[in-house]
């Protein structure tokens, strides 16, 4: 009896000791400067910097899904796919694509090549235009890119385009405004200085929430961030700058704040690839400023007893 109890007691004692030690050490470890649990992210700990590589891979995979699998490999001509089309179509990034997006495969080089094209997607389609089914009215299939964008964001929360692209498709084609906003706010938590996310949030409030005041605040914050981060660069991000200032300009114009609108338009014109088009907007505003605003029309006379 004694011989069986003693080992059990020793084991129990060791367990209690280990548990106590772990509890004591855990507190110390949390405060230790060198620990990687600050990120509280298993993926970061496991994968290290390679997670960025995977994140990019999954971002490109989302674009492959956007094309229903018709996508160039590293062995094909990728000139027409430098900027993922799902990002370009969302209007959140500037495009750098050239060449033939439909014919990157080229002509079949041999009979095996010709036969193989029957066995994989060989037609250029976009999910928001029906995908493989070709039903142009069906844009709901764009939901299929979401898992890869989600995974990409998990692996690399600092890749801004993941949030902006996903948010666009969520609110525009899937009707999930709340989810889009939440995703953008997650991105903003990870990247508090991101002008792209602020701009996109502004669009959510402007186009979907109809909260123009909030949208303006966000765009102004976005512009400030852009000027702080991008303006000093030799090659700043002109595409998004134009998006921000054009939205601000048009917003101020609608509100009747013409001087402010003009100021934004001047900024817009300075960096626009088509300054003549912007000049027309400026001329319109100047014309509006010159001619007085018409008096509001008098309501029509109503016979007594009738509702207006």
């Amino acid at each position, binding site marked *: 009896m004694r011989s069986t109890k003693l080992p059990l007691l020793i084991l129990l004692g060791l367990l209690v000791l280990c548990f106590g030690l772990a509890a004591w050490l855990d507190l110390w470890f949390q405060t230790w400067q060198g620990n990687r649990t600050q990120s509280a992210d298993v993926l970061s700990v496991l994968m290290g910097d390679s997670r960025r590589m995977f994140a990019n891979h999954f971002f490109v995979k989302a674009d492959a*899904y956007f094309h*229903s*699998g018709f996508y160039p*490999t590293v*062995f*094909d001509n990728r000139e027409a796919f430098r900027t993922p089309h799902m990002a370009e179509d969302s209007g959140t990034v500037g495009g750098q694509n050239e060449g033939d997006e439909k014919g990157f495969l080229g002509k079949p*080089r*041999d009979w*095996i*090549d010709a*036969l*193989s094209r*029957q*066995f*994989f*997607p060989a037609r250029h389609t976009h999910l928001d235009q029906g*995908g*493989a*089914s070709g039903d142009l009215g069906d844009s*709901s299939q764009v*939901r*299929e890119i*979401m*898992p*890869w964008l*989600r995974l990409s964001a998990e692996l690399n929360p600092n890749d801004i385009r993941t949030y902006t692209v996903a948010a666009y498709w*969520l609110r525009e084609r*899937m009707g*999930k405004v709340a*989810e889009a906003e939440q*995703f953008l706010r997650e991105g903003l938590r990870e990247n508090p200085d991101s002008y792209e996310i602020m701009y996109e949030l502004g669009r959510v409030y402007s186009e979907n929430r109809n909260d123009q005041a909030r949208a303006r605040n966000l765009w102004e914050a976005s512009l400030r961030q852009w000027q702080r981060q991008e303006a000093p660069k030799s090659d700043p991000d002109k595409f998004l700058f134009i998006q921000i200032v054009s939205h601000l300009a048009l917003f101020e114009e609608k509100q009747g704040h013409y001087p402010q609108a003009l100021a934004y338009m001047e900024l817009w014109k300075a960096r626009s690839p088509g300054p003549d088009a912007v000049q027309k907007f400026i001329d319109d505003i100047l014309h509006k400023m010159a001619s007085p605003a018409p008096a509001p029309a008098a309501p029509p006379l109503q016979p007594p007893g009738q509702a207006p």
Partner: protein
Amino acid sequence: MNNILAVASVVIKELYRRKDFYVLYILTVLICLIMASVNLFHDVHIVRYLKEICLLFIWICSLVIAITTAARQIPSERENRTLFPLLAKPLSRTQLLLGKFLGCWLACGLALICFYLFFGALAASREHHWPLLNYLQAGLLHWVMLAVVIAFTLLGSLVFAAPSSNATITFVLVAFILLLGRHLNKVALQLPEPRRSILYGLYYCIPHLELFDVRDLIIHNWPPIAWPVCGVAALYALAYASALLIGACLVFRRKAIN
């Protein structure tokens, strides 16, 4: 033919009495169900990533089953000395080898049916439609591809010393062909002679297993392939499988088994 079928039936029994298939099947089901439970922007209709994960596991599992089953057939018969009472019967070595091939192939076919049924159920749970023709085509092409892999593995089991080395080499070759087989001609055209000719020669010699990988068509709901084209691909695979089996039979006939 009776002898070949008798040997094949023993191989099939071996598959469903071993645990390999069940472990892989349960693993696939579990992983797919876990992936399906992930909340993605509160949209329950997102399905293609699930289909891709499921099909990826089906392909990996089917290759594992095919290669490991085929790789151990002849070596384990020799090691366990079950080959001797077998060949002491009126059964030629050719019949034995063909029986092993047919058994492995049919066993893989049965496994594929189970896997694709699960895949169909998983996809239908979200898509609410069941493109039976597409799935049938994909399954058939997959099965026909496995014929080439099994034939190659059987030949390897007679050439290489150990089943593990045979399995490893086969896995590496199959992965190489599936990932890069389609692109060898593009790479070849960028090289100077004589490397261009060598690579192009290799391109024509290898069995293009990637032809049978129609996962992208299934995942993205493309229309089914024309049946005559499938027929040509099936004939292509069966030609390769036959050539490999003939080679295996010739090697086996000359091989000392004790």
